[in-house]
């Protein structure tokens, strides 16, 4: 029996397939315009490998969870990221999930969610903020981090993504080096995330979501939190893995 977890986020759709407690497959797709379409695409890809309704259970999570017609159940990304992280890291602590539209802090005890915080409707401190800024600077996310390493202290004071973008535009206008702006952009995200996490403090943190392979951001988070932050390449699938684990 296969356990399939599908995490349809605002930017990407992640799928994890488990069998006998082992992750045997992961799929990463862009969510694109239609959650429904990407859900169908995932089903077809799995079907091609012999994973079908006959031999698999499906649990959907993420904001597009309601658009997976073949899901047996839907569970929120908070529960799934908590469960998936505990599976990956085998430790209690606070999970930091920086998603495309939300950032969450999830505190785990005995592998269970004890408390969580989530940004309100504002996109400060989320993947969306980074996306807007990298686009404005004409960079890829990897380039942004690489440049930031060489950057000097610059503070982007606006929390609001729209205002912060104007601030970045005026920095560009003043010919501020891109490295410095990149540094400021990442610090802004780190600071916002850390202030959100103040409500779920811990001595140990795990980063999940799309930034899980960005060593620079992980390092800056650890410094700002003054505590170890771990991540794994598979951590971007934490939500999908958690969902798969919840398949009956």
């Amino acid at each position, binding site marked *: 029996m296969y356990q399939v977890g599908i995490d349809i986020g605002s930017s990407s759709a992640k799928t994890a397939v488990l069998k006998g407690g082992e992750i045997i497959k992961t799929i990463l797709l862009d969510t694109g315009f239609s959650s429904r379409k990407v859900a169908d695409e995932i089903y077809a890809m799995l079907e091609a490998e012999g994973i079908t309704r006959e031999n698999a259970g499906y649990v959907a999570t993420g*904001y597009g969870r309601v658009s997976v017609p073949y899901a047996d159940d839907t*569970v*929120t*990304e*908070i*529960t799934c990221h908590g469960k998936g992280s505990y599976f990956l890291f085998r430790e209690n602590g606070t999970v930091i999930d920086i998603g495309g539209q*939300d950032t969450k802090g999830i505190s785990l005890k005995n592998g*269970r*969610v*004890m*408390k*969580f915080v*989530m940004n*309100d*409707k504002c996109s400060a401190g989320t993947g969306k903020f980074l996306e807007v800024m990298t686009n404005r600077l004409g960079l890829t996310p990897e380039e942004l981090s690489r440049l930031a390493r060489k950057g000097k202290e610059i503070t982007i004071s606006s929390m609001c993504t729209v205002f912060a973008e104007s601030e970045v535009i005026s920095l560009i206008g003043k010919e501020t080096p891109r490295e410095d702006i990149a540094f400021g952009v990442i610090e802004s995200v780190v600071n916002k995330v850390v202030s959100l996490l103040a409500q779920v403090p811990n001595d140990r943190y795990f980063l999940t979501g799309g930034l899980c392979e960005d060593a620079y951001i992980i390092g800056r988070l650890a410094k700002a939190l003054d505590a170890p932050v771990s991540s794994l390449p598979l951590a971007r699938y934490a939500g999908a893995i958690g969902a798969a684990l919840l398949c009956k």
Partner: protein
Amino acid sequence: METLELPKSFDEFVDARKAGFLKVKEYVENGGHLVGMFCSYTPLELFDAAGVSVVGLCGTSNEPIADAEKVLPKNLCPLIKSSYGFAYTEKCPYTYFCDFIVGETTCDGKKKMFELLNDIKETYVLHLPQSQKREYAKDIWYQEIKLLKEYMEKRYGIEITDEKLREAAHKRNELRKTQMELYTLQGAVPPAMKATEVMSTLAQGMFNFGVDAQHASYKAKVDAAKEAVANGAKPVDEKAKRILLTGCPSTGVIQKVGMTIENNGGVIVCLDDCGGERTQKMLVDENADNILRAISDRYLEIHCSVMTTNEGRIENTREMCKKYKADGVVEMVLQACHTFNVESNLMQKMCEEEGIPYMKLETDYSTTDSGQIETRIAAFIEML
């Protein structure tokens, strides 16, 4: 018969709203008097004794907010904006046809809004003390209530006698007891009904003319629910997580918060806002020598976050958590409501002491954050 004019935009209204207007118009044209009010501090017995119907005008809809923001700042509580907006746009029949509005100084936003509202509709503002604690607080409030009584007597050319006040106090007490019965039905496992039903019953009941009609509507609901339970009806899943909903007045978020809780594996077993058990369990001493004083004393007892300090509210919620076997506490704070927002810290501490999971939601009447609110509520219930 008095002839009354309908709002200028009446023809553009949808049928349900037109019907509402015509019903109120008819009531007033037939000699009925109507007063609008906002808050549980309003001494209802005074209006009952004067033979005047009193209706709650607390705005609970997002609809008139954009218009209200032409006058009021955006960053203000949605209840205040909505209440003002209904008067400003002439879309609420009760606001439109009432003789006057009774406001109170329960928060700075409302207090200042009433000054502007007074330009649209006469607004009489009751001045609340800042706290119940001072020796003379009850005297201040008594003087306020007496002043309102004198105002009413003069305005309507009547005498509000002690006998009438006593009778009104008795009827209001009976109504409160029925309301308590309605709340207590939720104590069963599983509760007798979804709380969104209770919320709708209470909200609709407020729009009856007079205490008797309101009482009858609540009584009918209690009887129907009891009968359904006796016949084996179980409208709520036994495994549903039992939620106590506290914080700001919640009628404006029945859909966004109430229904979301109840559609995601939860059930609200205790409505712990100012219209709930915390307030309705307080009765007026019907046999007091000075009945007006007994009425004013009862109202000043109310635990509102505007009072400093306000331990009574927190302690009452602690008791409610036990009585209703709450699995979790959700606190709903309306955007820009500083008093409840700050006080939420004390509520959270109490929940931690009791070992009950707590979550605060800060929101308004719009749908902009519905997705995030749903994720938060669903995750909270999954966590329980």
